[in-house]
């Protein structure tokens, strides 16, 4: 193909083209490598700092490899029970919240994808309107309180499980990948809507279930807002809220007094900031490469939405 095309062009043009192409190539790959460094180095630094002696980190001796290798930062984590309570809570919220989210959004999306659904336009608008208009923080807060959901497990997994964007993406998926004839054939065989959805549509929709499941799970794993607003009991706090105390408001360092003991405590608290980032981020990053194929597919579906 390439040779066929070049022969069509004047010879000088072909040479010129080749040269500037090579230059562009160098620019592109050079820029790509620079970009990778900018993206990866801060993350790499956190990893090596978590294994390094904190004073070496503080004095700027850690650049490319860990200095004064130690696992003290990780050992320190085990002394803080609230981190592990938070971890457990986050896993529960993520697993249960994702299950509820899928159970709510996928069936709704399928129903909305069916052209023979009477009131389809109105129902779509009913959902989409909430994307652009909301009651706001306080009215939502008062609603949660009226329903006695404030400071409960349930508030973390149920009230905000409808995600309209996800419904739109899944609806597009159903419209484009489940042939309409399939329903007509099933109907002739006397199959009802519910049985059709469970036995035929769901097994054909593994890709979209994976995409939404991962989006929802990542959302639950990473969010702290709902916990900040609706939870008071520390035993219900998710990991992110505890991370906030450690990383941002520095609550671990307060009330330590002075003297040598305080110095050591401060040192350990500083070390823990690196190790806690690692243990909080690694699980969700590990999920990602396995799911990459599905993630891309999901965005692709979103991109073609009409």
């Amino acid at each position: 193909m390439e040779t066929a095309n070049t022969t069509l062009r004047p010879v000088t043009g072909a040479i010129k083209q080749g040269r500037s192409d090579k230059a562009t190539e160098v620019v592109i790959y050079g820029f790509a490598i620079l970009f990778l460094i900018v993206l990866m180095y801060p993350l790499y630094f956190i990893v090596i700092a978590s294994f390094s002696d904190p004073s070496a980190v503080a004095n700027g001796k850690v650049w490319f490899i860990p200095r004064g290798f130690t696992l003290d930062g990780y050992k320190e984590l085990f002394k803080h029970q609230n981190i592990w309570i938070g971890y457990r809570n986050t896993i529960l919220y993520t697993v249960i919240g994702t299950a509820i989210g899928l159970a709510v959004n996928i069936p709704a999306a399928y129903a909305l994808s069916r052209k023979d659904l009477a009131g389809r336009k109105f129902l779509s608008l009913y959902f989409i309107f909430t994307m652009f208009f909301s009651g706001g923080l306080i009215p939502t807060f008062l609603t949660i309180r009226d329903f006695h959901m404030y400071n409960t497990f349930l508030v973390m997994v149920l009230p905000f499980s409808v995600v309209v964007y996800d419904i739109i993406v899944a609806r597009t998926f159903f419209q484009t990948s489940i042939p309409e004839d399939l329903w007509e054939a099933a109907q002739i065989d006397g199959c009802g809507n519910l049985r059709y959805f469970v036995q035929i549509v769901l097994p054909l929709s593994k890709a979209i279930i994976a995409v939404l499941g991962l989006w929802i799970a990542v959302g639950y794993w990473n969010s702290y807002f709902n916990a900040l607003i609706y939870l008071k009991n520390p035993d219900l706090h998710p990991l992110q809220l505890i991370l906030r105390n450690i990383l941002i408001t520095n609550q671990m360092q307060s009330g330590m007094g002075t003297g040598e003991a305080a110095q050591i405590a401060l040192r350990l608290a500083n070390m823990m900031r690196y190790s806690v980032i690692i243990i909080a981020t690694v699980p969700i990053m590990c999920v990602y490469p396995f799911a990459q194929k599905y993630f891309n597919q999901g965005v692709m579906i979103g991109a073609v939405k009409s």
Partner: protein
Amino acid sequence: MKAGYIGAGRRYGTFRRNWGLYVLLLPAVVLTLLFAYKPMYGVLIAFKDYSPALGIGGSPWAGLKYFEKFFNSYQFSTTIKNTVIISLYSLITFPIPILLALMVNQMRANRFRRFFQTVSYMPHFISTVVMVGLMLILLSPSTGLVGNAYKLFGAEAPDLMGSPGLFSSIYVWSDVWQHVGWDSIIYIAALSTVDPSLYEAATVDGAGRWHKIRYIDIPMLIPTAVTLLILRVGGLLGVGFEKVYLMQNDLNITSSEILSTYVYKIGLLSSQYSFSSAISLFNTVINFILLILVNQISKKFSENSLW
């Protein structure tokens, strides 16, 4: 649609035949009613002197008192200004994911490209809390990477996170760092739908790489870009609470207090429910108007619109 007008009787017929579909919709409809539409009714407290004992319906009307209070408060111009600055600043970075997508599209489909893409999405999965924690660590003048880099050259490091002047820059560029790869996926997906014969035809016509980008790739991305741009402009006053709130400190508060953090502080930290609701309603209404406006403009000048 195909049948055109459907009579009332037939419509009832399809309703009865498809009852199963309504069962599938029921959970989402009910949850949306309870947790999205019920709070919208609760917005009434913005026009009332809300007292928890009397409830939403029973509290006395206050008219526009709380809106006037907000317009006259000294926080009004500060929060609006800060919100708009951060918003417009992020809007400027809007083309960066497009440029990245164009670049990735020029790379040969091989292992390096796959690796590049995987790495570029990764920061997206860092939580906001960890992201801000990371920024505090790396930008710390005493112990962070930036501080150490300054020390390397024998200079005194500035306190970046405590600087009001740099707040918007740090906010916006850390966002670019975290999300540029992820945001480019949608454009890469759009580019992957280009018919290869178009490129071949262009090559035959003597078009070089830049010509193909200019006349094939970019036009291909415009519909997606316009749709996303409309949504962004519609959210002009909707700068998210989570990251700004975490980045706030006493030193940078003059440029980091935005509408959503102010709503939170007035509402939940000092329990002025009606006042807080008025501010957030004002915010929502402006965003809603902007969205409709931008959508109309886009409809008029191009064929792209949200609805």
